């Protein structure tokens, strides 16, 4: 019987590992080269990764220089051209208020990337610190912290975010909070499992023997060694955050008009007039898909590159 229980524990460990791969795609990775070298290697071995990296780069540049790239102002209404079909003037047509969809998509990339990056970075970083701390301290803290993580993991992201956004209200800042909070435990769980292995490595003992403070050991000696899963998490979180923001905005609980935001553009007129003006519904959705696609593909390739087990021989 005892053997059986151990077997189940193995199974559980396996399941946890699988879950991590499934939702966040990470395992511990060796720490042998600098990040740049890894990137270079990845570009050679991962053509999809390189392509997606380029897509992300272009997106970031477009967002930064939105004011110069966009041919029209994203919020100015132009009632003479309501629901105009795509043309030379309006590359992707206009919406029901005569606003240029192409320009709104370009400016919407700002909203998406700001929300995506901020919540992914903050969420993953807090998760990183908490996860490593939990692994390092172990004991009661670890036990309690893991149960708290369990609780958060039991909710689908959208349900958590919906509840939080109802507490804080809508708007960009609050949407970021609503998306960040459920990310923290997700990242903490993954980072912790990588860090657990680390704890047993002698140099951590050495550091402890040197009398370094817990804070120093965690931040200086452990955190840098779980950078690989952390980076992969950040990438995948950006995509998830963009999707979440779009869903919240679509439900009317996210970013508010007239701010240009992709999910918001799919509300109201986009659905109402979709038969006679399909461009209003098609292009913003395409923008979301492309952006999330790029981040996911990048994260996927990053995992393949960093995880030796899956590397092709």
């Amino acid at each position: 019987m005892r053997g059986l229980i151990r077997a189940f524990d193995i199974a559980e460990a396996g399941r946890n590992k699988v879950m991590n791969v499934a939702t966040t795609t990470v395992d511990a990775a060796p720490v042998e080269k600098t990040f740049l070298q890894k990137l270079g290697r990845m570009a050679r071995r991962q053509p999809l990764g390189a392509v997606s990296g380029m897509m992300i780069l272009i997106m970031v540049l477009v967002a930064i220089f939105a004011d110069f790239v966009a041919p029209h102002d994203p919020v100015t209404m132009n009632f003479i051209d309501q629901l105009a079909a795509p043309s030379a003037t309006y590359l992707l047509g206009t919406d029901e208020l005569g606003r240029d969809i192409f320009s709104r998509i370009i400016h919407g990339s700002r909203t998406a990337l700001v929300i995506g990056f901020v919540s992914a970075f903050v969420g993953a970083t807090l998760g990183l610190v908490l996860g490593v701390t939990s692994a390092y301290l172990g004991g009661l803290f670890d036990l309690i912290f893991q149960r708290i993580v369990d609780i958060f993991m039991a909710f689908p992201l959208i349900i958590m975010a919906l509840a939080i956004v109802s507490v804080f209200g809508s708007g960009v800042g609050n949407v970021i909070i609503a998306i960040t909070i459920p990310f923290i435990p997700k990242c903490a769980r993954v980072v912790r499992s990588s860090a657990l292995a680390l704890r047993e490595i002698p140099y951590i003992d050495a550091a402890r023997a040197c009398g370094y403070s817990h804070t120093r050991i965690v931040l200086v000696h452990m955190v840098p060694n779980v950078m690989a899963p952390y980076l992969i998490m950040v990438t995948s979180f950006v995509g998830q955050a963009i999707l979440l923001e779009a869903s919240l905005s679509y439900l009317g609980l996210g970013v508010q008009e007239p701010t240009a935001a992709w999910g918001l553009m799919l509300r109201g007129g986009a659905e109402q007039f979709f038969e006679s003006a399909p461009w209003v519904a098609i292009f913003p959705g395409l923008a979301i898909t492309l952006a999330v696609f790029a981040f996911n593909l990048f994260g996927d390739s990053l995992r393949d590159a960093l995880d030796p087990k899956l590397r092709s021989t």
Partner: protein
Amino acid sequence: MLGFRALAAVTAGAAAMLATGFAAADGHKPKYGGHFTFVIPAKAPPSLDAHRETTYAVIHPARPFYSTLLRVNPNNPADPADFVCDLCVGDVPKPSNKGKTYTFTLRSGVKFHDGTPLTSADVKASFDKIIFPPEGVSSARKSFYQMVDSVAAPNATTVVFNLKYASSAFIPALAAPYNFIYSKAKLDADIHWYEKNILGSGPFILEEYQSGAQITGRKNPDYYLKGQPYLDKITGVFANKESIQVQALRGNRASAQFRGFPPKTRDDLVAALGDKATVQESDWNCVLLATPNHSVKPFDDVRVRRALTLAVDRWGGSQYLSKIAIVKTVGGIVFPGSNLAATKAELMDMDGYREDLEASRERARSLLKEAGVDLSKTYVLNNRAVDQPYKVVGVWLLDQWRQIGLNFEQKVQPTGPFYATLREKGDFDVSIDFNCQSIVNPPIDTSKYLSSDINPQNYGRIIDRKMDDLYNAMLLEADPKKQREKMREYERYVLHDEVKQMITLWWYRTTVHRSHFKGWKVSPSHYLGQALDNVWLDPDADK
């Protein structure tokens, strides 16, 4: 009494069938049978008790199950002053005792759906609940009945209303579509019973209510109007999203939506369905307001409020916004179809309605400068999370005010928090608000703009006795011509002299239904004409 503009104007092109509506005029006799499905463009209401509610989300699903004492003539709802008896017999009674006593004789033999007879005691109990609700019972339109002293039921078929003073507002108030007649026995057992249950004496009998999803009724074989209703079965499906409503009509999953669509949707549907779609249009007794919060700076300053109204291009907005939103008509505080309403010339003599938009906006900019308004600040426009027309008009206003250098952001909230902000919290600079009434009764409808302490539904935190005096003078004026003049004075004071509130655009009702749905006629209110006892389905229309 009231003159109305041409209604039922069909503009959707040759493909659209002209909506003539009236049974005889259609050249068809009503057909019997059929299962009529319609979409209710709302979320499920908090309760089913219409005495308590103010939303069509109760009227559309529940009205077919009930009778009322009086109602707007279902065959002529375009004139909401054309009242007919529903449960009473004969014509609408004339008052006696110098206009202070109204005596109604009820139909005999009317039964509730559970078989119990409907008597004057039930009518009295229902109106007592509406007019004199006991503590802990809300009655949304209680203030409409301030003239009523008592309701009496001297015998089983007679109901007498005793008024404190004669009032022309009494009969219109009595005919409100919310005044369902409930069973006294049920009310006595539990006065809140009707919040969750339905038991009336109307043309249809409740079969099933799936909370939040759909409501189904079957024909009442014992309905007191002989030969009616024509339909065997009705189903109302709650569909909050306009896209679903459009698709439902498009794919023939529902035959009607009774609130209204933007013209662009009308055109799309007519283009797709041709003569299988019928369009009916009307002015609409609803208007969106922009209410500045008079208790916060800088909106306590009339110069700033004037700048706000000057910036708004109402004539242009009417043209462009009306394509995609359910708003259209430029007007003052009075329903534009009423003869108490301002003419175009009278409107154009007020700030915000003038012809030269650029001059107005230039003046607005200098007024802001003069008042020392901080243009770097972003102000808050409180708005309701309803697309049509709230959010569309909100986005439009933001754009208008941006043109004079004022930056606003929208705080869009679901209905509950939206009202909490208006009523208790007051944390807004300007708010969208609305005045939407069923029976057209301008002297009562315009009480919306009275000082906030007199009418708590004026959310601008405005106290101005001069304004209240102007209103009362108008209300008590018996001569129609003089009343019209006094209405102008009141209106001009509210909209121009003091810019207490701003009228944006009056709604315009464009209904589209499948052509096989017959007998229903558009009215200036989506609360009216929803008993469905006089409508029928004509399968031939789909051929």
